[in-house]
């Protein structure tokens, strides 16, 4: 069984790596052929959101920490990287180093405060900090963040291989590499002794404390690791989108993350990745549906709900929460025969 799973994973991976050379159109799924820059860009964004959902699941699914401020750490990576490149002109390596430093320090400081709370108060403090971050970005302090307009990357700050539509395949590979590395790191982390303590905290925190372990330190470790993965996803997001925009700082964005993770299955890493990919893909495709000429023929009662991607995603989310608590991951696990 385990061997077969590995084989399937390797085959999927090989296919994904080779995708930019496969010029096959898949009608219905994508508008253009697979090697078209537009398709690759959408897929790369899907990988970024898969990574982000993975980092959120690490926190929510494995440690049981329901954060409503995860968008802040994604935006942290995106904005620090974009600011270092376009406002301070420090060059790519220094920008990456600066981003890594910020990606480590911010969650360390805020996590140290937030984790003094538990459960719902914890969720609310994370929400409040993320809101503060969002206000900060919108206020455009010192002209750094660009406020509502967002911050576009200047093309000359990047190596030529990462700029321009013909080079989309390079960005695609970067996004794929991000997802694979993040998955490997998360997998190692949850299988490590610390990972076992995380899951024990999720089940019964007091018991962990009674056993002589300090839950606070373990939770802070998970918080920082998850925030750093989110920041890495933020960097790749900026490369793909050619800049940072304030939508990624909002509480609505964190709620979208929550939807992704629940869609895919809380507490399974691959499920969360799948949830992020499917959410982003649906979000993209449902916009196309909204503009489809077929839809215009329907009366407003049918047309309006169908032309709002968020309505359909929200409805799907409610149905999943009510009837399929495990998400996609849970569905597959339920179908699979019990392990011997």
């Amino acid at each position: 069984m385990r061997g077969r799973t590995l084989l399937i994973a390797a085959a999927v991976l090989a296919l994904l790596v080779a995708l930019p050379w496969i010029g096959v159109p898949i009608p219905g799924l994508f508008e253009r052929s697979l090697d078209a820059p537009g398709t690759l860009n959408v897929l790369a964004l899907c990988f970024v959101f898969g990574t982000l959902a993975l980092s959120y699941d690490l926190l929510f699914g494995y440690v049981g920490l329901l954060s409503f401020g995860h968008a802040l750490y994604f935006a942290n990576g995106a904005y620090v990287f974009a600011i270092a490149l376009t406002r301070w002109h420090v060059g790519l390596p220094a920008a990456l180093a600066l981003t890594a430093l910020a990606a480590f320090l911010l969650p360390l400081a805020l996590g140290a405060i937030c984790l003094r709370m538990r459960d719902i108060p914890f969720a609310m403090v994370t929400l409040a900090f993320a809101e503060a971050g969002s206000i900060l970005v919108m206020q455009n302090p010192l002209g750094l963040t660009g406020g509502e307009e967002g911050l576009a990357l200047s093309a000359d700050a990047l190596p030529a291989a990462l700029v321009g539509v013909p080079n989309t395949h390079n960005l695609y590979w970067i996004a794929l590499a991000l997802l694979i590395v993040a998955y490997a790191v998360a997998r190692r982390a949850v299988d490590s002794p610390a990972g076992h303590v995380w899951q024990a905290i999720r089940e019964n925190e007091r018991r962990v404390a009674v056993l002589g372990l300090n839950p606070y330190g373990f939770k802070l470790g998970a918080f920082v690791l998850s925030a750093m993965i989110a920041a890495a996803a933020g960097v790749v997001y900026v490369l793909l989108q050619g800049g940072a925009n304030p939508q990624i700082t909002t509480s609505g964005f964190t709620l979208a993350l929550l939807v992704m993770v629940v869609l895919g299955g809380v507490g399974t890493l691959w499920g969360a990745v799948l949830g992020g990919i499917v959410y982003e893909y649906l979000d993209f495709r449902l916009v196309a549906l909204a503009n489809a000429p077929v839809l215009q023929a329907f009366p407003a009662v049918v047309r309006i709900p169908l032309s709002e991607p968020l309505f359909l995603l929200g409805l799907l989310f409610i149905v999943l929460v009510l009837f399929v608590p495990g998400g996609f991951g849970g569905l597959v696990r339920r179908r699979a025969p019990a392990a011997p």
Partner: protein
Amino acid sequence: MSDVVLLLITGLGLGALYFLVAAGLSLIWGLMRVLNFAHGAFFTVGAYAGWTASTALPSASPWLSWSISLVAGIAAGGVFATLTEVVLIRPLYARPVGQVLVTVGVSLCALALVEGTYGNDPKQILLPDALTGTTTILGAAITNARLLVIFAAALVLVLLLLFLSRTRYGLIVRAGVENRAMVEALGIDVQRAFTLVFAIGGMAAGLGGVLAGAYYGTIDPSRGTSMLIFAFIVTVIGGLGSIGGSAVAAVLVGVLQQFLNFYAAAGVGDFAVVALLAVVLLVRPGGIAGSAPT
């Protein structure tokens, strides 16, 4: 001096709006331990129901038309909240996280529908002349609508306190906030109280939506979300489950926000509110009215 009075009353008006949203949130959390993300949607639906009613039923008197929108907003908020509780939250009593998630889904759906139906642009609210006029208090010219918002929120506060202290259901709600398992063990049907609390919270939020239209002069789909976030902050600072605590915290937050946004810089007030939340939680985790968190 007139600046200070103006800011104080504007801040009180903002606090009044926060209170109308926070009161329901706080009661729902206190009694049911549900963090209700759909509360911002109740607010928005109330605002748009009021606008729709007053434009669909044009009447000769602007007062009548505005009163209709007030009733429509309260009714829409109450009905929407009751339906949410009965249809979506009740099946999930055994799964607290599922309940929070479902309210997130409701808020996403409702917001998307409102945006799809009415568009993203703000809608102008038609108000009676008496409300757009001003009253001079200590040298500051205050729009009457703001005074009305403050008065209405104070009325809701008094009515809620009377309901909680004088009626049988109020007693059940108060007892449920203290110890839900014990109330159930005494053979009292707490579920009816759950629905009631949701209905009351939804009505207050719907009223808040219509009054916010009068306060700002316009309504737009995104205001409910920012109201919800500040109402969350207000409920935590006030102490979850306490109506009096929410009222005090709402005034504190609204006034602080207005003063700092004016005297420091735009945005500093919003920032300070978040900082206040962090300080309160670190110094006094149960909030102003609370003791230890449960």
